[in-house]
């Protein structure tokens, strides 16, 4: 099946995840179309991070169908919780991960490599590009996040916001079909959050397909096309930012939102 421009980049159907007895994700459906920014909000423990980690298979889903760039991932092999169960092979997943970029809350930069080397690593080792070309593209990506002057610095010398932007450039360098952001500003000092959100907004405006888990409701309101509220493993409400953030229909959504004091829009 050839991917159509109108097909969603990411299509998730009935995603379930169990951790032992804990049923964390209880059937989540989600779609992200090309060029869309989708935000996932919810309280801690709702399963937001787990959901994201299933998309690039850091965790294996217990059940549910995931289609990335038109390709269904894994082999169907039965049902559970009323949803199809898939068998995954690490080799296929390793390949899939080159199309799914991930930016982590803890940055996870490689401390023994410079910023430039961090960004280049995927191009050099995974895409097997020649060094000169990898370096050129890495520099371009660092420029995009505004850190070209820090190219030869080690992560320990960079601020949290700078490290996170390098992490974004590293994921970007792989030219993924979709980028996942896992609460990427939650570990940052408040004054450093802005630079990261700005970089993300620029990416969104350039047409990157993004799935963002965040507490930054301002960002969700101004940049996202769609907002989903995840609570106790299911999507309670979804819609445009205006709908979900300004005029929520569900009680739980309202309850969640009243907890936020600095919500500027």
């Amino acid at each position, binding site marked *: 099946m050839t991917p159509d421009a109108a097909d969603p980049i990411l299509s998730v159907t009935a995603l379930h995840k169990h951790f032992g007895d804990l049923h964390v994700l209880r059937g989540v459906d989600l779609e992200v179309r090309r060029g869309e920014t989708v935000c996932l909000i919810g309280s801690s423990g709702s399963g937001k991070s787990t959901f994201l980690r299933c998309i690039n298979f850091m965790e294996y889903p217990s059940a549910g169908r995931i289609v990335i760039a038109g390709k269904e991932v894994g082999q169907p092999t039965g049902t559970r919780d009323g949803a199809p169960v898939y068998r995954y092979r690490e080799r296929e997943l390793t390949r899939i991960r080159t199309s799914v970029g991930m930016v982590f809350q803890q940055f996870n930069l490689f*401390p023994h490599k410079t910023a430039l080397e961090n960004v280049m*690593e995927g191009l050099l080792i995974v895409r097997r590009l020649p060094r000169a070309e990898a370096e050129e593209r890495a520099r371009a990506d660092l420029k995009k996040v505004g850190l070209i002057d820090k190219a030869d610095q080690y992560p320990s010398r960079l601020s949290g916001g700078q490290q996170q932007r390098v992490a974004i450039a590293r994921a970007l360098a792989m030219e993924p079909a979709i980028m996942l952001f896992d609460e990427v500003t939650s570990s940052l000092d408040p004054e450093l959050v802005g630079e990261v959100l700005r970089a993300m907004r620029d990416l969104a405006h350039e047409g990157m397909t993004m799935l963002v888990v965040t507490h930054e409701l301002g960002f969700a309101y101004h940049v996202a096309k769609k907002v989903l509220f995840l609570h106790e493993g299911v999507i309670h409400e979804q819609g445009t930012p205006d709908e979900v953030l300004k005029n929520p229909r569900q009680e739980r959504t309202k309850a969640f939102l009243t907890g936020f004091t600095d919500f500027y829009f």
Partner: protein
Amino acid sequence: MSVHEWKFGVVLEYWRNFARGLLGTFELAAIIVLAALVGGVLVGAARYSKLRLLNWPATAFIELFRNTPVFVQIVWFYFAFPVIIGKQMHGFYAALLGIGLNMIAYSAEIFRGGIQSIERGQWEAAKSIGMGYAAMMRRIILPQAIRRMVPAFANRLIEAVKATSLASTIAVSELLFEGEQLANSIYRPLEIYTVVAMLYFLAIYPLALLSYWLERRLAIDERVKL
């Protein structure tokens, strides 16, 4: 009670004996360290593996050699092992086996600990850009892990050199043995053993300094500020 007259001159006449002993000590230590590096990696990898076939024997080996005194191991290899295999065993090899296997067990734990100390985020970041297991280990995990292991290995090296002194009891020509032999022939144990102690210190202290220096150097380099 008379004040003993120190006669170092007499003892230093026999510097060749001490030199011979030191050489023997270094020989033993060198082979043991090499064995520990190679063996430690292999056993450490097995210990770290998720396959029970590798993991359990490795764990048993490590626990066995860490929870018995090294002297017992040396004695066993010298007296018991030859009887089992029906062959004579030279003290040198018994010492190698006893101390060497002991060192391998400790090194394996250092190796495993080093790998495990690498935070999960590093694995995940490498995975997230599509790296396979081999590339991940080679480029991301091992370079960081090895840095962390070096101070511990340096300590183990010091312990290994100290342990070679036990080989004196099974007639291996190393420093303490040569000292003993000399003491038995010219009977000046005070001067002789003082010299032997000094020589051990002079041999080991540089290693300790190296270890301190490495520890400091590696601690500063790697810190990632959050």
